[in-house]
């Protein structure tokens, strides 16, 4: 009964209701991916700290050997990709919360994307080069 009442007041089209994506056009995707990357980052960060601690003070040859070994390289790659995605989502929220000037907001959101992709590509490239030694 209340459903009928709601429907009569609902200004959304049937398609909008079915798609369930709301005013952001992406539903809860941003929220969900923030949590997804956060959960993944917990074990990956702990492993990253162990790897980094292990490599302190080692010479270049030893560092390359350890960072270039498959298991370490794969975990480091997962850490880098999880982290850049997580920080891309997080910085977008910070910009949206504090920057209210429309042009500045759009520019910073674009800059955020460029920065995160650049950092991710640089780290991924370095890890691949360490593994394949080209």
């Amino acid at each position, binding site marked *: 009964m209340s459903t009928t009442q709601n429907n009569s007041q609902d200004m959304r089209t049937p398609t909008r209701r079915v798609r369930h994506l709301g005013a952001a056009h992406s539903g809860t995707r941003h929220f969900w991916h923030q949590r997804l990357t956060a959960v993944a980052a917990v074990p990956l*960060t702990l492993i990253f*700290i162990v790897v980094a601690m292990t490599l302190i*003070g080692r010479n270049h040859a030893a560092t390359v050997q350890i960072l270039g070994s498959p298991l370490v390289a794969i975990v480091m790659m997962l850490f*880098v990709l999880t982290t850049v995605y997580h920080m891309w989502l*997080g910085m977008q929220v910070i910009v949206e919360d504090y920057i209210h000037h429309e042009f500045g907001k759009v520019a910073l959101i674009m800059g955020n994307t460029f920065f995160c992709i650049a950092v991710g590509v*640089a*780290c991924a490239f370095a890890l691949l080069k360490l593994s394949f030694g080209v």
Partner: protein
Amino acid sequence: MTLTMTMSIVHRITGGALYFGVLLMTWWLLAAASGPADYASFQAAAGSWIGKLVILLATWALLHHLLGGVRHLIWDLGYGFGPAEREWLTRATLIGSIGLTVILLVVYLALGRG
């Protein structure tokens, strides 16, 4: 301001700092990938007193953001909202991050590798 309010903004500040702190990791990986000379330059910078201080602060920020994130995940699941629980969780985040940073510092000093 209550501790939960302070820790809320600290979570955001550590997140924002780590956003740029990631450049340290990028520098480290690129230096290692570039060769012995570039890696030596990185190690000289990271081994300086200012380098060590920045890495120590970044380590605390990373651990604090990690523990704060776990606290938020617990809240996301609907637990820990009671007045005593939320204070306890918030205190644990701060004590845990400082404690773990000190433990890592002790391990680093014990290893004695520069």
